[in-house]
């Protein structure tokens, strides 16, 4: 149908504009031609025209190729905008209600819905992609037409459906201007309604989502792919469907989003599934970080479960666990996330007319943005996700879906095994050589690797003492302490306040890390820097144990620009100690700001050694590992 749309250019531009643009004019900054098309499209009835006008050339794929001049100027222009196909698509998408979250083809899912057919390729007649055979058109069109609206233009032609209200008209009829206008009005109304609906999470069955923004920029993506016809078609479809999804992606807080940028925050909020209320008084320096009132959103989210249809339950569960703090610690979170993804991949089936590679990537992205809403990603998770996406992108095209899925699941298992579990073992092996009889080892917080090291050294029969340093509010050290004491290690427990007193007895400091950055900075549980600095002052070697998959090429000089804020209540209140809750009633005071940082950055000067799966290296060599093994990490 699309090609026909372009044909519509015949109709006068103004009318189309009106019809088309009502809801979201700003985005339309696109050049005229697309607009024209769009407006026209809704009244797709004009399709007849299309048929007439659209030459076979129209059917060509949207691939960016110098436009053929034979078409009208409009065509050319559209063609020129490289991105145009997607745009066109997205426009159409607007009018059409598409199940929002399933970016994939709605058609497969809900017959009742009108899906915008993948006509997009055809829609840009101006572009001639010689590469694309006409056949693609056929492939493209899998549309369930609403009963009312059905018109197929020949086998090759794809149906375009417009809005459902409009649908009453058969496309083929020629509409007069007036008629068209009426149509448009109707559409508009429909759209508005749809939007209203759509804003709420679309219900699983039939949700109408109006893609909010079709931005020209998006268009670029689809255009970039030049593949065989079928692929193109698929991608285009995606382009169309994806619009909503993309929005999601975009709006989900970027991992390093600056939360003091109001407009962005607003946008992100609109999108957010997890409605987090922001804490009111935030410390000036940390306004760029998200801070939420914790504890309230859980029930909220639970009720939303059925509305979030694209979210796989496993992912959802993990998200909630992040939110409630049931899963914490870099490795645990990463493994949990990967296992949820594995589940999701297992249950995944590629929607018709989509390619697994692109669709699955998009799906994973939407999961990730959900997880980000629950709790900002740790750097290790970021790396893991990068790995997974890379693996997906590198899947050979020839693989069948089930093969691809099992390959991905294997990759995930392999990652967990090799990069996390095995490398922990290697680290333990290295670290144990640094423990001698009579040592006093100090550790801070609860790191899984450090725990393994201590236990293993104990098993080897080394005689040493352990000092577990802990801090409020999480008191994770107590967990570690419990396990160590149970195994019979001799332990001392103290809070970080006393670290300078205890440090003189200590011979080694073992620390875990959330990440080690390129300049050797160790990014870890807040308080680590303090412990490391005290150790340095006492000339006690500081050993940081960190798996290499947690290394990151970023450089960070302080703990301010990137960090995570915890629940401020946690530091203002002490559970079970009513008598010392001096801050009761003060929490909402204007002039009181509570800061509960989760991480801090330890400069590399205070780190004597980083123990990783590649051996013991000085912190200055972290970039070497990152550089030499990046490919290795991605297995690409």
């Amino acid at each position, binding site marked *: 149908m699309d090609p026909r749309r372009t044909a519509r250019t015949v109709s006068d531009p103004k009318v189309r504009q009106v019809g088309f643009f009502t809801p979201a004019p700003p985005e339309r900054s696109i050049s005229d031609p697309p607009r024209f098309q769009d407006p026209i499209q809704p009244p797709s009835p004009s399709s007849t025209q299309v048929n007439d006008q659209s030459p076979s050339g129209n059917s060509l794929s949207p691939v960016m190729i110098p436009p053929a001049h034979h078409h009208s100027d409009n065509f050319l222009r559209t063609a020129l905008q490289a991105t145009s196909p997607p745009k066109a698509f997205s426009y159409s998408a607007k009018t059409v209600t598409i199940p929002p979250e399933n970016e994939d083809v709605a058609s497969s899912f809900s017959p009742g819905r009108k899906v915008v057919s993948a006509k997009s390729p055809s829609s840009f007649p101006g572009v001639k992609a010689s590469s694309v055979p006409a056949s693609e058109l056929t492939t493209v069109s899998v549309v369930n037409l609403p009963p009312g609206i059905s018109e197929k233009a020949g086998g090759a032609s794809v149906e375009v459906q417009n809005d459902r209200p409009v649908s009453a008209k058969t496309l083929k009829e020629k509409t007069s201007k007036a008629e068209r206008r009426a149509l448009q009005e109707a559409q508009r109304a429909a759209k508005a309604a749809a939007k209203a609906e759509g804003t709420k999470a679309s219900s699983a069955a039939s949700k109408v989502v109006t893609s909010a923004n079709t931005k020209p920029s998006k268009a670029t993506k689809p255009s970039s792919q030049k593949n065989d016809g079928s692929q193109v078609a698929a991608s285009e479809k995606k382009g169309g469907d994806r619009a909503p999804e993309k929005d999601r992606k975009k709006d989900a807080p970027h991992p390093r989003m600056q939360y003091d940028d109001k407009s962005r925050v607003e946008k992100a909020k609109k999108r957010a599934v997890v409605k987090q209320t922001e804490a009111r008084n935030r410390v000036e320096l940390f306004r760029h970080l998200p801070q939420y009132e914790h504890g309230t959103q859980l029930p909220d989210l639970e009720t939303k479960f059925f509305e979030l249809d694209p979210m796989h339950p496993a992912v959802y569960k993990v998200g909630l666990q992040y939110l409630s703090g049931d899963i914490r610690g870099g490795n645990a979170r990463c493994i949990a996330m990967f296992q949820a993804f594995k589940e999701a991949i297992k249950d995944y089936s590629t929607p018709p007319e989509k390619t697994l590679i692109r669709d699955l990537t998009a799906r994973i992205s939407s999961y990730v943005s959900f997880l980000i809403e629950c709790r900002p990603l740790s750097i290790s998770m970021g790396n893991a996700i990068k790995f997974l996406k890379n693996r997906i992108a590198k899947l050979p095209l020839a693989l069948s879906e089930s093969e691809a899925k099992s390959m991905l699941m294997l990759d995930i298992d392999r990652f967990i095994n090799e990069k996390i579990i095995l490398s922990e073992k290697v680290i333990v092996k290295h670290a144990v050589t640094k423990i001698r009889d009579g040592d006093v080892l100090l550790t801070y917080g609860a790191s899984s690797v450090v725990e393994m090291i201590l236990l293993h050294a104990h098993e080897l029969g080394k005689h040493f003492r352990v000092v577990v340093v802990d801090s409020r509010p999480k008191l994770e050290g107590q967990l570690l302490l419990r396990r160590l004491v149970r195994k019979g290690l001799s332990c001392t427990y103290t809070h970080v306040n006393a670290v300078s007193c205890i440090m003189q007895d200590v011979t080694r400091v073992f620390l875990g890390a959330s990440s080690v950055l390129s300049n050797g900075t160790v990014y870890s549980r807040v308080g680590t820097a303090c412990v490391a600095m005290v150790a340095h002052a006492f000339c006690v070697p500081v*050993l940081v144990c960190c798996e290499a998959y947690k290394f990151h090429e970023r450089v960070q000089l302080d703990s301010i620009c990137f960090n995570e804020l915890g629940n401020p209540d946690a530091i203002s209140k002490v559970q079970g100690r009513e008598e010392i809750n001096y801050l009761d009633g003060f929490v909402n005071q204007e002039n009181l700001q509570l800061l509960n940082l989760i991480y801090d950055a330890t400069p590399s000067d205070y780190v004597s*050694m980083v123990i990783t799966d590649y051996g013991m290296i*000085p912190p200055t060599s972290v970039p070497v590992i990152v550089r030499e093994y990046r490919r290795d990490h991605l297995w690409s």
Partner: protein
Amino acid sequence: MWWRSASFILDRQQEQNTNLPPNPESLLLSSPPPSMADSLQNPKPDISAYYQTRAAHHAVVTSDWLAQAQAAVSVQTNDDVSSGSDGRVAPTCGGTGGDNKTFSVIDEFNSWRKQPDLAEAVAAIRALAAVIRASQATTMMELEIELKKASDSLKAWDATSISLTAGCDLFMRYVTRTSALEYEDFNSARYRLIERAEKFGEISYKARRIIAMLSQDFIFDGCTILVHGFSRVVLEVLKTAAQNKKHFRVFCTEGRPDRTGLRLSNELAKLDVPVKLLIDSAVAYTMDEVDMVLVGADGVVESGGIINMMGTYQIALVSHSMNKPVYVAAESYKFARLYPLDQKDMGPALRTIDFGVPIPSKVEVEKSARDYTPPQYLTLLFTDLGVLTPSVVSDELIQLYL
């Protein structure tokens, strides 16, 4: 620095007249008794093999001391004796000293080691090449296993020598993961390995030359260099500088137990370089006159720090606190995958120390022969890979071994 250069000329003249001549003699006289005493007093097992041969090579006086030592013959001193004669003696000593099950890499190693100009690592690699030559293996895998055994026994024979370990590792690395394996038939691969091993000695010599060339930029006219211990590389550097007609003077520490500083000053005096000898404890006292500290290294470790003769650490500390640069000259085959966290974090290389008087048995003596200098006290490393900051060492090691 430059203001000092004017006075330096004067200093030099003075010193030439006064200081230098006496030194060699005094040293000649003083050193023999102690070293002999060493060998007599202390049972060998206490002494790291590395330092045994070192003593043999580097003893300032060999002839008369040798005579005495021979007079005192004991099986244990064999090692030292053999150095005086030639490599042929070695096999017997290897038989007694190390327990060698193979055709005896260790003998081979020792015989190579007797050549004073040959570095330990080179000797090790030559010994391993001999293993290849003697091996009956018919496949690469067999050969590899054999080599592995040999290198393990070599390493075990003297666990304290870093460059021996590093040399073995390096060669094993080469055998196990290089293009040598790509040769179509076993014999040519084998031949290639041997060839490579033969070349290694040359490479090590070349490395010394390269280091000497690279370091010339750092030695400027009128500078005063403090050196510690005796290092072939450092000597090469200074020699080259002297040949390039640079005007500089050298402060040599005495290098106490084995007086390696005396030997170096001896060599330098032969080159007409003004030398001043210091006792080891005078380092801080003279540091304000010094423009740079130049030391060799037994081993360069992963952190970029060095393991070197006892006393290097304190010199580095003193010069760091006085903001004098500390340069290290070391061949890249001394890079070792070790990472000591502190001084006690490595197996001590023990060495006898002679105090000139009997020490009551209740008094404990620190016998460790070397210390670890952390990278933050080093300015630059002159290696055949270029002039490196300490942090690059780990980079190179990672590329070499991972």
